[in-house]
């Protein structure tokens, strides 16, 4: 049931989460919004590899990947200028790195509306701007 009306439609979005069930859930939601899902990938290394090879419009990044902080990924994303949303169960607690803490955050568990709003806010500002420029 893709929502064609979503502004997120057509975005290439990478999902980084160490838990397959969670990743599948996110994947489903993204597909519903018409996004092209890249991944998901469970580890930092794999995420960095994908980020190196693929064009990404946005990333959903779990703060904790198999017990490791995903800060390196966040730093890399920031460096690349790729917008990303941190998905975490830590709620509003401070995360391991400013790159994570300062990024838009999606607290687990989340519903569809929340998911779309957060992602739209995070990913579409740039896009709209670039679209405007493109026109």
């Amino acid at each position, binding site marked *: 049931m893709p929502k064609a009306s979503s502004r997120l439609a057509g975005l290439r979005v990478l999902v980084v989460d160490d838990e397959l*069930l969670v990743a599948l859930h996110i994947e489903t939601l993204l597909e519903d919004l018409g996004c092209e899902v890249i991944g998901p990938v469970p580890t930092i290394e794999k995420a960095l590899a994908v980020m190196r090879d693929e064009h990404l419009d946005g990333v959903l990044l779990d703060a904790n990947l198999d017990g490791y902080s995903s800060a390196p990924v966040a730093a890399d994303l920031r460096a690349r200028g790729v917008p990303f949303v941190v998905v*975490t169960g830590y709620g509003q607690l*401070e*995360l391991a790195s400013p790159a994570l803490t300062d990024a838009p955050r999606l607290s687990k568990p*989340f519903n569809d509306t929340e998911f779309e709003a957060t992602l739209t806010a995070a990913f579409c500002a740039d896009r709209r701007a670039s679209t405007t420029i493109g026109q």
Partner: protein
Amino acid sequence: MTATLAADAAVEVRPAAPASAFKPIEADCITALRHRPKLLESRVEHFAATPCGARVADLFRRMSLAKGVGVSGKIPSRRPRTVAAAEVSARARPEHRKPRRDTDPAGVRGGAFPIVGIGMSAGGLEVAIAFLRAMPADSGMGFVFVQHLDPTHESMLADLLARATTMPVSRITDGMRVEPNRVYVIVPAKTLVIEHGLLRLTEPTEPRGQRHPIDAFFSALAMDRTTKAIAVILSGAGSNGTAGLQDIKQFGGMCIAQDPKTAKFDSMPRHAINSGAIDLVLTAEMMPDALRRYVDHSYVESPKPEVIATGPGAELGDVLALLRTRGGHDFGAYKPNTLSRRTHRRMSLAGVEQLDDYMAILDRTPGEVTALTRDLLINVTGFFRDPEAWDALDMEVITPLVEKVEPDQSIRAWVPACSTGEEAYTIAMLLHERGEAAGKRFGVKIFATDPAEHNLGRARKGEFPASMVESLPAGRLARFFDKGDDDYYRIKPKIRETVMFAPQNLLTDPPYSRMDLVSCRNLLIYLEPDAQERVLSLAHFALREGGYLFLGNAETIGQRGHLFSTVSKRWRIYRRAGPARSPTLDVRAWSLRDAPTASSKAAPKIAEIALRSLAERFAPASVLIDPNFHVLHFHGLTEDYLSQPAGAPTLDLLSLTREGLRLPVRGAVRKVIEGARSVTLRSNAKGGAKTDRVLVTASALGDARNASDLILVSFAKDQGAAPVKGLRRTPRAAALQGRAERSAERDFQEELNTTRDELRDTIEQFETTNEELTAANEEVTSINEELQSTNEELESSKEELQSLNEELNTVNSQLERKVAELEDAGDDLRNLLTGSEIATIFLDVRMRIKWFTPAVKSLFDLIDKDVGRPIGNFTQKFTNGGLVEKAQAAIDRLETSEEDILADTGQRYLLRVLPYRTGDNRIAGAVATFIDITDLKATQAQIADARDYAEAIVETIRDPLVVLTADLRVQSANAAFYALLEAGRAKTVGQRIYELGGGKWNIPQLRLLLEEMLPLQHQISDFEVELAAPRSERRWLTLNARRIEGGQNRPDLILLAMEDISARKDSSHHQDILIGELSHRVKNTLTVVQSLATQTLRRSPSLEVFGEAFQGRLQALGRAHDTIIEGNWRGIGLRDLVEQALKPFQSADRIAYRQSVDVELQPQLSLALTMILHELATNAVKYGALSGAVGQVVISWRLEGAGAAARVAFDWTERGGPVVKRPTHRGHGVNFVERSVAYDLNGEGKVEFAAEGVKAVMCFPLPTAGIFTPATVEESD
């Protein structure tokens, strides 16, 4: 005070005055000198041999100086120096001497260039060197140094001086010519003079010690160079040079003295300055300038009156007018020549050439007016200064006085303001000379008075420096002076005795009286007009009728012609005029004037009128006299017996008595005086025009009651020629009387006899009286002598007493001041001791109380009266102490002791006993002080308690405490701190805190706290720091720091209390992590559940299917969590995990395990594995081996590889179930299993649908380092 224009006097030799003073031959000499100087040249030697040679020489000198008369030839004298002077003076102006002129080159005549004579003595050398250093070498002046030199030693003076100047320096040899820009130095043991530019050395005639080389040279220099003679007096002892300066000044030269303040020996300069001859007082360095200024002035070259008299502007008259207005001194009588020359000289000193300029200086500088006035007067005291005036006095006053004086009378003179007595002595000498000349003996009384005691002291001594008197003619010098041992001349006693010195201020003290001469020279010029008036009035009063007044040359009696008549206007000699007034008569008249006035007041009574008529008619003419024949009352007609003689009116009966009555009057009165009641004598002579004999009756009046000495003398005509009782009669006389009428011849004979008798009688009486008088006179003279000497003694005693009194006054005032100071000090001390409330007791060496403060009364039963009693006698109100022993020890051994004592009142005192030292460091007792230390002791105890208390707390406390000094060194610390530091006290105290524990305290936070925050904030609480040291674990501390303000005795300290919060910090951190993790896991799980629900829902055809599947999956999830928790979040065995995961599906061993090893897995794998196994088992139950009754699932795994490469190969194999049909699409379960293995286990999984059963093969790595890593913030670094 004698100020004369001596030099001018010398110039103006008046013919009359000196001529009359000399014998004819001398007068001849003078005349000759005046008119024919050459004539006298040849006669000088002749005169010199005469006794008056010295006077001639003196005169000659003056003449030659005055008139420029040059005379050669020697004038021998008793005083060789006079010879030298005469010789010099005779050659003073050689240009007037023809024979000499040819041999004297014009360039070196006297006065060609200035010569500076420099006199010095002790201490003069360095000044002389300074002077020469400052003196340019081309000044055009010649310099001659005269010094006292040890005759036996070669002088180094010339060599020393030569180093100070580039001018050539020569030792003087006889006949050496002085040239400009050269320096000449005297040689020892010679007298140096200068004669027309040639230096002359002679053997000194004075004995050693009495030589005046400086005076001698200065005098010679003055005469040789006049205005170009400059005398400089430098440091030296004695008065040498002072007399010479007078000559320099007289001849118009200049005199400089070294400033006595800069002189090592200031005696010479001081004498010089005091003499008044010094023009400038300068330091050696300033002298050259002054010299140059002086010698460059026109005055020096040409001291002529025209120079200023012809000035374009002001004239000399203006100067004199100014002096008259400013100083009140009229110099109109002075010769303009002199005045202008002296004024010109002052101008040279002032450094101005124009009289206008000098007038300006005079106008604005009062001091210059005074200086000029003094210069015009030449304020010099001396014997016979201004000789012409003295000659005039001699002639006009002294001579007549001496002529007139009766033998045994006295000539009285008064010299007010006598200064040091020269003037008075001069008068005495003149009187003496005149008296000797007249061959008369008479008394001389000269009263010399002065307000200045020091002057009188010198005058009384009658000692004068040789230089003062050497100018006197030798005759006078020898006659009036004795040469003393030193260079002093002493007035001879015969002159000295005639002068009486007494302190008297002319203006305030009563004057003397009945003087024949008052010499008041140069006093008036210093006085204001009204004071002058007073002085002249006093002089008038003091003089007897006809007495003389002698004033100074610049003084006149002004408008007081009614008081004085002029004797000599030129020489200011006046004579008292005005009403005759005898003080004795005045007094008598005054005393008698009252009596008749008083009696006339009473109304005449009838009886008195009757008595008076009777008396007039019948009573004889009588006079009432006193025993001195002084008439007190006339009665009746006395003209027959008395007559007023010519001359002054008199009341002397004997004077009044007519010729012939004197003898009977005197005889009768004398008898009455001798005791007779009444005596009548008959006169032999006829009284007046009458031929009658006269009976003279003298009766004593008064009885015992009014015993007056009045005598009534009555005169009566002798009508009866009756013998009178009491008349002395002889038989021969009676017989003669019987024949009297018979013969006139007999009358004459009788009269002659009577007269003879009376004459004899009178002669006898006269002789007796004369003897008596002589005796009385002798007596009186001796009494007078005694009185005089007594008076002198009294004078000197008085003098001594006065000086003693003065001393005593001084001492007394000093003592008074000292006493006042002591009183102040005593008050201060008493107040101090009382105010300090320290009990203090002073004891003398015998342990008696000297003094004590009021506070002592609380320690001893003392009252103020107990001072002086032994301290041992008093009960002491304190327990111990041994005060007496301690005091004794202090006195004997100078021991100082201190002891705490307990008073009976319970107070504690510190008893301190010290020796009592006097100002001269003598031990005069002991001082005991009792200082109340009760409070101190209590406070000390409190402090000790508080300290113990604090220390106990500090030591007990478990938190580390450390006290730091201001420079952050450990002062002290408690045990907990040492424990924290793991170091002992020894290694800690004194160390800087940053150095402690291997520098682990050296951290920025602590530095911030201690060095920046604490100085500002005083106290800082709960400041956290982390200590990390290489070899010990991290520590978290909270610090409480407090600055403890120091006082004067203690610097600031820092108290640092710390609390080790490391443990708390750890647990707290761990807790935070757990909470975070819990949240993370719960929410993650929820998300998983959400995902499960979503995924399940999407693949479920119905809610029933969804419900079953979702429940199963939730349960699996739950079991996975059970597994994790059972494994306590740590490693988990694979077998346990599988069994747990498949527990719901296990029935009758349909699930079999084939494995060789158990494998320890990381907990995070359990969820994925459990879910994978759940999906496989669910599928088996639905469609596979477990769906039927017999199927079986075999699970096996094995470990492949080792270490990091170890992998687990896991097989799920179903068999015995229904035939497997390949599904049309891969279901969610299969898909999930395969993806999960890849995704969650990082392995490979494959589910195969074989016919005999589903077979799943999984292979995944076995992570060896499955470390549990929290994802939340743990630490910043």
